[in-house]
């Protein structure tokens, strides 16, 4: 579904990704773990075309998107939940959701809105509240809901557990598992390696801009190097 082939990304003269190859297959949950500054977010941003890869190729469903503008990539069946949620805090919950379905028809929006409220009954309660007044967990739910509004085939989550209480994190990961059952491909980027690998079919370990390890989620969890570096021994 999503294929990165030897992708290099530069910020000015500094190379942040040194030839990364990742593949996410249809219906999978793939986790990408790595320490701060390893280039996880850069990798996601490169997929979205901001910044564009300086060399290498990126394919989405067989179509090359390496040089496409961000707006066009984001309209082709892929949705991202950005790091730090980035909801529109001045808009109401409902309006936030409608922004997610910006390019859909009204009846499609209505259907996906109902679907999102089924997944997150909490959002239904807060429908007309300004999004910025909600708790962090609710905002994260809204960010995921907003991404689902465009009915994507694939969803990318950038650190969905960032700054949330353990109980909320558990809920969020349950929802992510549920998304797979609905046939949505999930690409999950996390620092919370234990939960991310537990859920994932396959996992990648990114270190200073390079893929160090690549295996099934289970094998990575049991890998002594991974345990030492990311799971606290």
């Amino acid at each position: 579904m999503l294929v990165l082939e030897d992708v290099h990304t530069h910020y000015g003269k500094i190379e942040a990704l040194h030839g990364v190859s990742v593949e996410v297959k249809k219906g999978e949950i793939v986790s990408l773990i790595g320490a701060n500054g390893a280039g996880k977010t850069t990798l996601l941003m490169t997929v979205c075309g901001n910044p564009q890869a300086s060399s290498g190729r990126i394919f989405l469903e067989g179509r090359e998107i390496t040089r496409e503008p961000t707006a066009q990539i984001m309209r082709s069946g892929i949705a991202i939940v950005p790091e730090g949620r980035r909801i529109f805090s001045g808009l109401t919950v409902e309006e936030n959701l409608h922004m997610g379905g910006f390019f859909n028809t009204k009846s499609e929006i209505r259907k996906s809105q109902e679907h999102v409220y089924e997944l997150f009954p909490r959002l239904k309660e807060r429908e007309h509240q300004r999004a910025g007044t909600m708790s962090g967990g609710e905002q994260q739910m809204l960010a995921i809901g907003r991404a689902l509004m465009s009915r994507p085939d694939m969803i990318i989550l950038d650190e969905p557990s960032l700054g949330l209480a353990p109980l909320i994190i558990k809920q969020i990961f349950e929802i992510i598992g549920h998304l797979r059952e609905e046939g949505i491909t999930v690409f999950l980027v996390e620092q919370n390696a234990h939960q991310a690998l537990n859920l994932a079919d396959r996992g990648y370990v990114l270190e200073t801009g390079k893929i160090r390890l690549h295996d099934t989620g289970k094998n990575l969890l049991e890998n002594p190097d991974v345990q030492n570096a990311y799971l606290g021994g």
Partner: protein
Amino acid sequence: MAANNFRHALFCAIITLIISYPIIGFNLEAQGINVMLTGADTGTVVMVLLAAVMVFLFQLFREQIMGALRSVPNPLPQSSKEPMAENRRAKIESWVLTGIVILALFWPFFVSRGSVDLATLVLIYVMLALGLNVVVGLAGLLDLGYVAFYAVGAYTFALLSQYTGISFWLALPIGALLAALFGLVLGFPVLRLRGDYLAIVTLGFGEIIRILLNNWTTLTGGPNGIGGIPDPTLFGMEFGRRVKEEGNTSFHETFGIAYSGEHKVIFLYLIALVLAVFTALVIRRFMRMPVGRAWEALREDEIAARSLGLSRTAVKLSAFTIGAFFAGFAGTVFASKQGFISPESFVFLESAIILAIVVLGGMGSQIGVVLAAIAVTILPELAREFSEYRMLIFGAAMVLMMVWRPQGLMPMRRIHIELKKQE
């Protein structure tokens, strides 16, 4: 703490003396060919000293004074009573607004010519403020050169009428479209800028337009301006005593009534009213359309908006273009009302006043912006006796607003869009 306060107050008082004494306390007087420096009379010196004492006392008891200010009941409480049901309020609101517009239609026939003239000016500012509200209030792009588009509209009409003898009604769409084109052209280079940087570039753009108009003497007449801009006509009827253009008739002869200079003033007022209402309705429509939400989304969080597939270019350019379009509208009406325009009318202060209207009214709120436009235009006219202190009063009003109501007169309410009826 007390000693610290005292030191601070003393410092402020000395600063007051240092700043005000050289400015107020000395006079330059021409004696023959020489300029003499003379000290001011004792009265002025006493005033300066008194001012310093006042600053000293205020700074010394600052906490108490500010505390007292805060305990003054808010004249416009925000949530004193339960809000009405959303749809009922919307219904009442639309009735009240329709009523006000109808009243405004008949109002000019009962008041003096001067008030109608002033009301026309108010309506021009309403148009300008509503247009800027799209750029600043909704899209969150701080534009300090908005007056440039106003100038483009006004000069389009003035120049076209001078060189081709175009009529007001033809110039109105041309002026607005040309202003919109300028908005588009300015939009491109500033797409990547945000906040302060955007403000500086737009400020520069506003000045470029003004200086261009001032110096391109062969085309625009430079500081002498352009005069003899025709008045609008009503289906080929002119409002002057004598018909100026071949083929036109005059209004008072057609209807067989006595000539009166007031007809023209009232007609202009009505045009401005219709255009202002048109502006408000069109922008209101935009606000409810997806593009309106896209403006707001971009203001709230640019990265998130882009992650949803919105094109930053399209959204920002549309805001700039639509804002500029209505400034062009207002400019054309202004040129026709004044009959004479010069670069003097399009200085930075105008941009600042329009921006102040938007901020005072409440960013994004249409009713608030209209109220603020009325207040900011009319108050200086009412307080003509204090005209020397106009900017002082204006500044004080701004400060008080920021203390009591930082969100503006009428903060923007979220427009509630219902997709389905709830059980």
